[in-house]
């Protein structure tokens, strides 16, 4: 545990003592902020139009759900942006160690590969949580000026957390494969995109195959969280995705010893 914490602390410090963390968090907030603005203003305009129509027809103003019409939309956008930003967090984890040779220090110290993988994974998840925490400002504003339901917001965040951790787990894996950060980031991104896309393809193939494909899709499982539905099957899906990523990282590091590179 002490050694896990040593790795974890070092990684977190290294994120926050370099500009990486600030730039990534800043850019993520910039792009989600723009979309937040667009979504909320279009929702407000829509509400005003609906109010006017209701007055014109002398009806009661309609109840428009901010959870369904704005927040869910925002969550979906965030889940997409995460697939660009999270590979940038994970790309250096092992690639950089391989490039600078510090991997030799780690692998000749009395720490297990599992300890180092979990330390690095947790550090990246911590940075990701910081990123998510800042977006809560958007929700707080909605709670101040509107009347959304809390439940779906919380499940949405849980969904984003699990989804992001899955990205990170595979980000760790791809960074164990190469000493080049760009290659690590690009392959993580393409991998994530692939697991998104099989959800779309499922609509075009036979229903049986489609069902199988869509149950593999990263984003298909996120929909329920965004809607406010908490289903164990989705949680299990993401947890197994994370375990798979970490397991592959472990295998990759072990085998790189035998291959000698």
């Amino acid at each position, binding site marked *: 545990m002490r050694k896990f914490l040593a790795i974890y602390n070092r990684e977190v410090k290294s994120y926050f003592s370099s500009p990486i963390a600030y730039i990534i968090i800043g850019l993520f907030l910039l792009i989600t902020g723009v979309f937040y603005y667009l979504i909320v203003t279009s929702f407000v305009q829509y509400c005003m139009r609906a109010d006017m129509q209701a007055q014109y027809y002398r009806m009661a103003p309609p109840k428009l759900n901010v959870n369904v019409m704005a927040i869910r939309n925002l969550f979906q956008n965030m889940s997409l942006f995460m697939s660009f930003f999270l590979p940038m967090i994970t790309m250096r984890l092992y690639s950089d160690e391989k490039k600078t040779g*510090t991997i*030799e220090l780690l692998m000749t110290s*009395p720490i297990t590969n599992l300890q180092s993988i979990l330390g690095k994974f947790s550090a990246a998840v911590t940075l990701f949580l910081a990123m998510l925490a800042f977006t809560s400002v958007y929700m707080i504003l909605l709670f101040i000026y509107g009347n959304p339901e809390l439940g779906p917001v919380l499940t949405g965040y849980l969904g984003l957390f699990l989804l992001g951790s899955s990205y990170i787990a595979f980000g760790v894996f791809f960074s164990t494969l190469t000493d080049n950060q760009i290659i690590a980031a690009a392959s993580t991104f393409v991998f994530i995109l692939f697991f998104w896309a099989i959800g779309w393809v499922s609509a075009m193939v036979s229903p049986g195959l489609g069902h199988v494909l869509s149950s593999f899709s990263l984003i298909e499982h996120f929909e329920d969280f965004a809607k406010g539905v908490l289903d164990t099957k989705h949680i299990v899906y993401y947890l197994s995705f994370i375990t798979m990523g970490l397991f592959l990282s472990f295998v990759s590091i072990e085998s790189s010893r*035998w291959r000698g590179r």
Partner: protein
Amino acid sequence: MIEVQNVTRYFGRVMAVNDVSFEVAKGEILGFLGPNAAGKTTTMRVLTTYLPATKGTAKVAGFDVHDQSMEVRKRIGYLPENPPLYQEMRVRDYLDFVAKIKQVEPKNRKKAVDEALGKTGTTNVDNRVIKTLSKGYKQRVGLAQALVHNPDVLILDEPTVGLDPKQIIEVRELIKSLAGDHTIILSTHILPEVSMTCERVVIIDKGKVVAEDSPDNLTKKLSGSMRFKVVVDAPRDQVEEKLRSLPGIKKVIPANAPGEKKLSTLLVEGQGKEEIRPVLVKSIIENGWNLYELTPEGMSLEDVFLHLTTKEEEPVQ
């Protein structure tokens, strides 16, 4: 302390280390000498548990590097060719981190870091960010990293590369002072380093051990014939021709320093162990030349090294 038995390591089909065996006693400094790509680093990586051997076994402090790698790792300090430094960290934080993963007890950690800083002369830069340090200091921090947990065995891969002459002397002194408490393996391709610091040398070439002995013995054994440096004030060609015609002379090599015009310098090698000096002197005097210098030239470790690694020769026992 360290036993290496028939270690062989392939990378794909390429054999990097071929059946290497040697032992290092407790407190000894062993020099590991060889040209680039001879298999020095690979052997060291096997010893540090970084790479598994394809065949053969190695033991450090009685623990097998493969089956009991965690026990081995606790007992070794390793300085790879490129010091494994996290560029963005400060020196003290870095050493503190290394101490943590090397399982130094929390209460002893500060002391351990201070000692490592002191031994390597890096106390004055302890708050600097590593990437702003000069190469010499980086190398020393690398050494401090290997020392911080006070390991029984130190494995140093070319520890003096990139240092200036003064620092090189300091590092060598440091390494020497560590022997006794620590068992040290040091790889290098700089020969004087070995004769200055090591008690025993293993010469490795193309993955094979070609010689193993003390530096002195190695030079003695290989310099079978006597060799002298002769300086005479006569035209070189004449002297060369004359000396070559003498009995018992095997080789005459002109060795004038550049810019040396008045005097001729020659290296003369005799056949076998026979004394050739009287013959040489007599012949020079008879020709009416003046003899300025006549000095024995021992075969340097450099020659031994070239001798062993460039020619097909019987391995030295």
